């Protein structure tokens, strides 16, 4: 049996809006194992960020989460504010999509980097400073001593994301959540940042949840993949299986919409249609209006989770025949 660092069970997140409750995540279940990179992939708005913010205990006030998020023998959803604060930035860290706005403009890089060291590890100013310089070096920032004194606006986007990574790693977390860490960056910088995250993962043995909407990023980084659609996990598999034998038509669509550098004759195909609007009442599978393989049943009944083989699950009626798990135990 593998060693799960984080286990999410039946996560439900709802937003309290003027028009009533809007579900953002519906029954998501998954685990992250020690030292692995779990990619969560899906179009914008499908609930990836909300899932990760639930883990951090950083959901907006209008959101309400149910289910279980187990970490270190504790259920994160049942901790009080102070308990979850001590975990944030310490055992679980997060970096965000927008390096340009994720650092506080009025504090130096050094201050922002030393802060978690002082908060969680009780280091003195001097120790924290030395540790911070080491961290900057480690994330590949040249001339770290000088960078410590600089303000975020003096750094490029790639440099800022490196600083964010240094901050996230400062207390040697067991789990790093990276929410589209390269989406806002140039392609060449993107590759460097991903490489850095993977290298640091190797060095420290931490686990990584990497959120992306880009199948190319998944191919380069993932050990295992979670595909999300409209707040639900629709397919889960190790990265090889997902690329070689995708089961859910949505996953197949995502793969077809990925540019293929090896094959000139390949034509890019975007998935037609759009995500259902949040809160829109729908019958059947949420993907059926866009699904090229939709059957009558898909319009009426929402599929449960089927297991193709251990570790490969999908939420699609097409998978019913090869379901290994006739007890119908729900995974998501």
């Amino acid at each position: 049996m593998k060693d799960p660092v984080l286990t999410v069970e039946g996560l439900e997140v709802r937003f309290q809006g003027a028009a009533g409750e809007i579900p953002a995540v519906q029954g998501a279940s998954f685990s992250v194992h020690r030292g692995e990179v779990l990619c969560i992939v899906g179009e914008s708005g499908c609930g990836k960020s909300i899932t990760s913010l639930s883990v951090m205990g950083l959901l907006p006030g209008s959101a309400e989460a149910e289910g279980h998020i187990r970490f270190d023998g504790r259920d994160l959803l049942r901790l009080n504010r102070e308990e979850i604060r001590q975990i944030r930035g310490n055992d679980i860290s997060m970096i965000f999509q927008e390096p340009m706005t994720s650092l506080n403009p009025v504090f130096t890089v050094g201050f922002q980097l030393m802060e978690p060291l002082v908060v969680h590890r009780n280091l003195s100013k001097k120790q924290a400073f030395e540790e911070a310089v080491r961290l900057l070096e480690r994330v590949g920032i040249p001339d770290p001593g000088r960078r410590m004194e600089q303000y975020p606006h003096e750094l490029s986007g790639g440099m800022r994301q490196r600083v964010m990574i240094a901050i996230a790693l400062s207390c040697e977390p067991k789990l790093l959540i990276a929410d589209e860490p390269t989406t806002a960056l140039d392609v060449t910088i993107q590759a460097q940042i991903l490489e850095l995250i993977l290298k640091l993962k190797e060095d420290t043995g931490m686990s990584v949840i990497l959120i992306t909407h880009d199948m190319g990023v998944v191919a380069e980084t993932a050990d295992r993949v979670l595909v999300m659609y409209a707040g639900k996990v629709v397919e889960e598999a190790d990265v090889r299986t997902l690329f070689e034998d995708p089961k859910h038509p949505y996953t197949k669509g995502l793969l077809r919409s990925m540019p293929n550098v090896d094959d000139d004759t390949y034509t890019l195909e975007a998935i037609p249609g759009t995500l259902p609007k949040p809160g829109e009442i729908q019958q059947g599978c949420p993907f059926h209006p866009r699904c090229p393989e939709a059957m009558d049943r898909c319009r009426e009944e929402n599929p449960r989770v089927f297991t193709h083989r251990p570790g490969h699950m999908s939420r699609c009626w097409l998978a019913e025949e090869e379901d290994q798990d006739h007890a119908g135990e729900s995974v998501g």
Partner: protein
Amino acid sequence: MAGLIVRRLFQLIPLLLGISFIVFISLHLAPGDPASMIGGPTATREDLASIREDLGLNDPLFTQYFRYISGVVQGDLGYSYQTKQSVTEAIMIRFPNTFNLAIASIIVATVIGVGAGMISAIKQNTSLDALSTIGALAGISIPNFWLGSVLILLFAVNWQWFPAAGVTQPPWTLQGMKELILPAITLGTGSAALIARMTRSAVLEVIRQDYIRTARAKGVKEKSVILLHCMRNAMIPVITVIGLNFGFLLGGTIITEQVFAINGVGRLMIQAIANRDYTMVQGAVLLVATLFVLVNLLVDILYALIDPRIRYE
């Protein structure tokens, strides 16, 4: 940083010259003849003519202005038409009272305004927020003379906690503080309300920024997230409002000094206007305008201290 200050100080020169020119011209174009005020009702035509000659009122306006301004740069604001007293002296005697009142008021306004605005934003859409909104509305709408009178009636006449009128002791003594507190609340309430509204919206704007989420993601204590990460950014627009309000407060001292019988520049100005004492009014207005401009400079410096993006421009 030092370069910024020096540059801004140099920019003040044409600004202050412009202000002094406008003050000078507008008073000279106003109806009413200072010579007849000085000469009194019994003065003959010849008397008036010689008074005008003495005061240089027959010279071209520009010559008069030039004479005036060359005195001003040496600290000489001229002599009162009325009392023959040195204007500089008359103002300097009263200025500390006015300045202390304005400072005390802006402190009251800032502490109440920033505090209420911050709480209001953090407790957005709760009854506390509503209370602060109503309080701010009341603070803006209540006239100073009315608020001052009510405070005197309650706290000075009825309960006798504070003196009703006058400032006799320096503000760092207990008695001096007691003397200042009611006038400072009277004068500062309107500004407190404006500062509270500005603080509320600034905090609400900053609190949803990505870097606040980052601070929380680092595990920073909520108290530091608000007081350090949020307020340091939210103060940038609030400081402008505080600076502007300091200017309004200086103007507001006129009424408050009247209500609390404080012998300050505001009262001096009212008397001088009633007496058509040109030089006295000019001097007082020039002083207030200069202060206003200096406070603006101070605000710009504070800006640069808080916001590194400005400092390095």
